[in-house]
Each structure stands twice: as structure tokens, then as C-alpha cells.
């Protein structure tokens, strides 16, 4: 697939040079938010206007009272907005640097040796939402027992922040986090890496920890494709994936009781004058991360290049901010061409090398795409669709310009399978 630029998986030069000095920017505003489809009903633990310390519990899930969300910065609760049924829309914070940090009680977890206490600590310290459970790509239920955990110590997406940089100087925390995570599963804990981000001293992590080296070629660094290839997720056989930086955050929490303040994110895109790496708090205001390097003219902010959605705040799994030129009105189409465009949905997909490359040769791409387009959940599940979520199909969507997007068809199928599972 020579027309596909293979060089794209390497960080661009500007990102490399930016890594020399990564600035930390705590934005003045930040927020925890949820989408209506998440159906996240909460009760508040703080009042509007209250001063909160960084890491202090602010929200508790109504359905799963163990699950708590914590304040991403030290500051003041500026606004809390609910949808119908006390579903969270967002809780907004103003940053006040002198409000302090909240220390969680980590004695019970004994540095991660006590699995139930570790689980309870991750839930109560707001770190549980960093985990992602497949099938369905949701935050795992508090009592869920994963059949495997995948730690992604590489990120092959274009311009994504290299986990190597995020882990630099945090090897101790990373190993402590790995040890603790390995006790949360009876199955394997697979650390996917490209050979660069792994600490030298990895002995004594536990028998179920495995290291899996991957060529750093997009899309092979996507968790979904690796899970589908190595340990397929199914209903009743959930597989978690978590970013290596979050594992290091778990380790830091277990050691100190403090929730780490920042996360490494990349800010890039065609609407910016330069690309940069920076550390900012979870839930940071995306506009504040790039206001000083944005080119004149309208732009939109996405949380990811191919898999990005338009957003205002940095979500729990997002590490990439992409500014694209944009927001011009869609061109007015003549009714005739509109009819031609919409008559034959979903558009046929021609199996080319581009489609094969979009799955890294790990899955039978054409058969999987045809099953998705035909809405055949059983066949798609046999080909590994239950291990995938939207981000894993983003490259296929991008390359084939599929309409409707495969990601949307996959989400609809996953929602249907999930509803059938519940019934």
C-alpha cells in the first residue's frame, strides 16, 4: 500500500523537538462530563461554589455507589449541570492553585498487594474511569472480573504523545501499577510495547504478566486490534485496556495516596502554527491548550485525528487534541446528486490494500466490513468485532470514506448486542 504514507506513524519533527521541554499547563477551567448515551446518573458530594482539593471526591455514581469521580484540579466548583434523571452533563471547575491536594488512604491496598483493596482504592480515587472494558468499550463495572488486561505502552496514532515520554522517570510507579493491575485479573496482563518504553528491571511482576512487542506501525498499536488478535473479548469474557501512563498513575496513587495532577497530551493539527506536547490536567479546556498557536480563521477542536470527536474538554481516555480548519457550511447539493448519494447506503466497499492495511493484517478485513455493513452481528462477532470500538475502525473509515461510517455501524451493533445481553 504505497500510496498510504508509511511515514505517518512516526511522530512529526515538531513533536520530537517539542519533547525536549514539555511545558505543564493547568488550564483555568476544566470539567468532568458525560454523554447522554453513557446514562451516567450521579449524586454530588460537593456544592456549587465549594472549594475542593485536587483529587477530592466530587461525584458518586447512583447505580454503582463505589464509583467516585474526583476533582481534576484544586479549585472551586463553578457549575454543575444535570440532564434528565440526574444524568451528568458536566461539572465545571475553576483552578485555584492554593486549594491543596487530597490524600487518599492507601494503607489497606498495601502497595497493590491486596487486590480487593486496590480495586476499592481505584474506584474511590476516581481512577477507575481510566480503564476501558471490551466488549462495548465502556468503563468496567466495579465488580467486573477481567479475563485479561492489556496495557498499551505504545501509541501508533499519528501525532499521538509517545508513552515513552510519559513514562520517563516514572518506571517505579509504572512497575508498581503493573503489579497491582496483574492482581486484578486471573488471566494474563499483556503489556504491548515497541521495545522503547519498557523499564529494564521487570522481574517479580507476577506470573501472569506478559510482554508483547509490536512493530510501531499504525494501526497495530490500537488496543482493540491487539485484543482481537491475542485474546478476543466476548460477552461474559471482558478484556480491559489501559494506557501505560494511567498504569503509572495507579502506581503513584498506591505509593503516595495522591492522584497525579497531569497527563501528557499532544496538540496538533492543520489549524495550528506548530504542534506541541504538554502536560495538562484531565478534563482540561481544549481551547486553553491551543489558543496561543492557532491560526486565524474558524477551527474545530477534536480529541483525536481519525477517531476524534468534537469536544470542549479532555475526556478520560483522550490524549490528543487536534485542531482542524473548518466549520464552513456544507456545500448545497442539487437534489439529483443528493438522491444519487443517499440511494445506495451503505456504499459498497472495494477490498483493496488500503482496507487490509486499516486492520494491520490482523483481522479478515473485507469479511468483517461486509458483516458490519450487512448488520450481521453473529458473523461480525466471529471475526472479532466484539473486541473493537469506534477508534479501531477510524482508520478504515478514513481510508475508505465509508458512508455511513463503520464506526457508527459498529456502535449500533454493539449497543444492540449489549441490549440482548441484558435481556
Amino acid at each position, binding site marked *: *500500500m*504505497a*500510496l*498510504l504514507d508509511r511515514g505517518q506513524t512516526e511522530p512529526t519533527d515538531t513533536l520530537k523537538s517539542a519533547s525536549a521541554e514539555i511545558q505543564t499547563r493547568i488550564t483555568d477551567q476544566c470539567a468532568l462530563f458525560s454523554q447522554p448515551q453513557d446514562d451516567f446518573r450521579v449524586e454530588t458530594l460537593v456544592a456549587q461554589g465549594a472549594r475542593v482539593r485536587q483529587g477530592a471526591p466530587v461525584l458518586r455514581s447512583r447505580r454503582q455507589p463505589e464509583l467516585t469521580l474526583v476533582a481534576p484540579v484544586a479549585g472551586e466548583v463553578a457549575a454543575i449541570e444535570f440532564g434528565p434523571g440526574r444524568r451528568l452533563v458536566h461539572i465545571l471547575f475553576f483552578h485555584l492553585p492554593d486549594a491543596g491536594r487530597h490524600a487518599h488512604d492507601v494503607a489497606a491496598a498495601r502497595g497493590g498487594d491486596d487486590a480487593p483493596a486496590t480495586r476499592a482504592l481505584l474506584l474511590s480515587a476516581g481512577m477507575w474511569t481510566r480503564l476501558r472494558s471490551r466488549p462495548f468499550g465502556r468503563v468496567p463495572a466495579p465488580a467486573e472480573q477481567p479475563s485479561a488486561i492489556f496495557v498499551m505502552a505504545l501509541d501508533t496514532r499519528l501525532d499521538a504523545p509517545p508513552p515513552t515520554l510519559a513514562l520517563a522517570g516514572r518506571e517505579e510507579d509504572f512497575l508498581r501499577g503493573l503489579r497491582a493491575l496483574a492482581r486484578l485479573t486471573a488471566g494474563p496482563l499483556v503489556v504491548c510495547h515497541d521495545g522503547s518504553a519498557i523499564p529494564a528491571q521487570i522481574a517479580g511482576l507476577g506470573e501472569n504478566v506478559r510482554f508483547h512487542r509490536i512493530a510501531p506501525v499504525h494501526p497495530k498499536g490500537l488496543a482493540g486490534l491487539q485484543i482481537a488478535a*491475542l*485474546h*478476543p473479548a466476548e460477552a461474559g*469474557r471482558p478484556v480491559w485496556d489501559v494506557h501505560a501512563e494511567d498504569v503509572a498513575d495507579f502506581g503513584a496513587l498506591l505509593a503516595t495516596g495522591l492522584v497525579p495532577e497531569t497527563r501528557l497530551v499532544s496538540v496538533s493539527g492543520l489549524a495550528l502554527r506548530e504542534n506541541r506536547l504538554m502536560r495538562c490536567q484531565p478534563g482540561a479546556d481544549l481551547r486553553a491548550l491551543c489558543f496561543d498557536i492557532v491560526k486565524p480563521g474558524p477551527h*474545530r477542536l*477534536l480529541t483525536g*485525528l*481519525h477517531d*476524534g*470527536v*468534537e469536544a470542549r474538554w479532555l475526556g478520560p481516555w483522550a490524549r490528543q487534541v487536534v485542531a*482542524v480548519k473548518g466549520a464552513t457550511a456544507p456545500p448545497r447539493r442539487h437534489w439529483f446528486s443528493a*438522491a*444519487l*448519494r443517499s*440511494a*445506495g447506503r451503505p*456504499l*459498497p*466497499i*472495494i*477490498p*483493496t*490494500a*488500503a*482496507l*487490509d*492495511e486499516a486492520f494491520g*493484517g490482523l483481522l*479478515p*478485513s*473485507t*469479511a468483517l466490513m461486509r458483516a458490519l455493513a450487512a448488520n450481521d452481528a453473529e458473523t461480525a462477532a*466471529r*471475526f472479532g468485532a466484539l473486541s473493537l470500538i469506534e477508534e479501531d475502525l477510524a482508520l478504515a*473509515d*478514513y*481510508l*475508505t*470514506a*465509508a458512508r455511513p461510517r463503520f464506526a457508527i455501524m459498529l456502535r449500533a451493533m454493539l449497543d444492540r448486542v449489549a441490549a440482548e445481553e441484558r435481556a
Partner: protein
Amino acid sequence: MTRGIWDRETVALLLLAAALPLAATWLLSTGMTGALRLVFVLVAAGLWHVAFMLARAQPPSFAGALTALAIALLAPVDLGPIPMLLGISFGVVAGELAFGGWGRNVVNPATLAIAFLGFGFPAAPWPVLPIQLGWSVIAVVAIGTFAGVIAWRVVAGAGAAIAVGWYSLGLGMPVATAAAVVLVLLVCDPVTSASTNLGRWLYGLLYGALVLLFALGWKGAVPVQVAVSAALLASLAAPLLDEIAIRLWLARRKRLG
């Protein structure tokens, strides 16, 4: 949020671009006769595309031009306009447009049209392909593989089978030329060829093996007839080969649990 360019029409245009060396070589060797024939097939197939666009809101595809090139190049000669129209209509409508257009078809419309004409009008002579067409296929394969629209595994499988025939079974140059031209025009169509990696190898090998079988065992068959028949049978078997490949893949996955 950003969109790529690899939709159906891009693939069709790249296939057309890849076929240009072949088309140019053929037009140089046949001159005005070939050009007129190509225009006739293009108009006839294009009319059906327009008809289906108006009646069924089915967008026409540039792949229709590739079909027309294949029909003009490989269909029996000296047929007269009415039989040609019949054959083109049958191939384009029953082979492609009735299924919803290029990308949803089961067999290649050009294969169907040529086979229909060849077997329906057995008195009409098959075309004799000039030798240089076979060499232009190398350029077609190079461009198509570089752009990712021609599966190299199919070409390699077919090439291996035909090479065996060439060196050990005394396959002649005319058959090899016809097999090569049919390979890039009909067999390598990404829609109707096998779509798994193992399936592509098997598909190419099957096509090459059928060419060998027909060339050596079919008394009285001419090279283009041999190659087109092999392409038709191989494309009918393509879903089976894919199924075999997928079954094997699933069996290997069983141990993952």
C-alpha cells in the same frame, strides 16, 4: 472527522489508470478498428449505466469503462452490432447493475459478457492478441500493485501456475499472452476476486491451473477462449476459497478461547 479518498470511484479510477498501458498498446496495434469498437462498447454500456441511474438512482461508476475495455479487447470479433449489444447488455445488466452496481456484483460483468458472446455465437472467431499486449501487462501489474488496487497475491499465484506450464508443459506464447491480459482485466477485479490473503493465493493458483488444464486438454480452444473460461470458473469459486481461508483462520483462533 477527516475523510480519506479511497472510495469506490477512486479505486475504479486507479484501476483504469493501471489499465492504460494495456489499452494504449492495444489501440496502437489495432488502430481505428479497435478505437471504434471501444467507443461502441463504451456507449452501449454507458447507456445502461445511465438507465439504471435514472430508474434506480444508482450512481454510475468509472468501473464501467474498465468493463467496456475488457469487452472490446476480448470479445469475439466480426459479430455485428446486434449480437454485441445483446452480449454487452446481458453482461452489464445481469452481471453488475441488477445487483446494485459495481462493488455489489458477484461475477465480473465483462467476464459474463465475453463468455455469453463466446459461447452464444460459437461461429464468431475469438480475437488474436498481439504479443506486445502480454508485455504491457507488466506495467499494469506494477501500477495496480503500487496503488494497492491489484492484489499481488493473485498475480503471484497465477504467475506461478503459468510459469510451471511454460517451463515444464510447453505452454505457448499465445496462451501466456491471453492468460496475462485476462488476468489483469478480469481476474484481478478486486470486487469479484477473493478478498482474504490465503484466498487470493488460492484464487490465482486456481486460475492458472485452469488455464493450464484448458490449454492442454481442450481440443480446438483458442487462447482467449481458454483464458476467459478459466477466469469465469475461477471467479465462481472465489467465495468458496475465501470461505476456506476464513474457516482456517477461525480454526487457528479457537485456541485463543
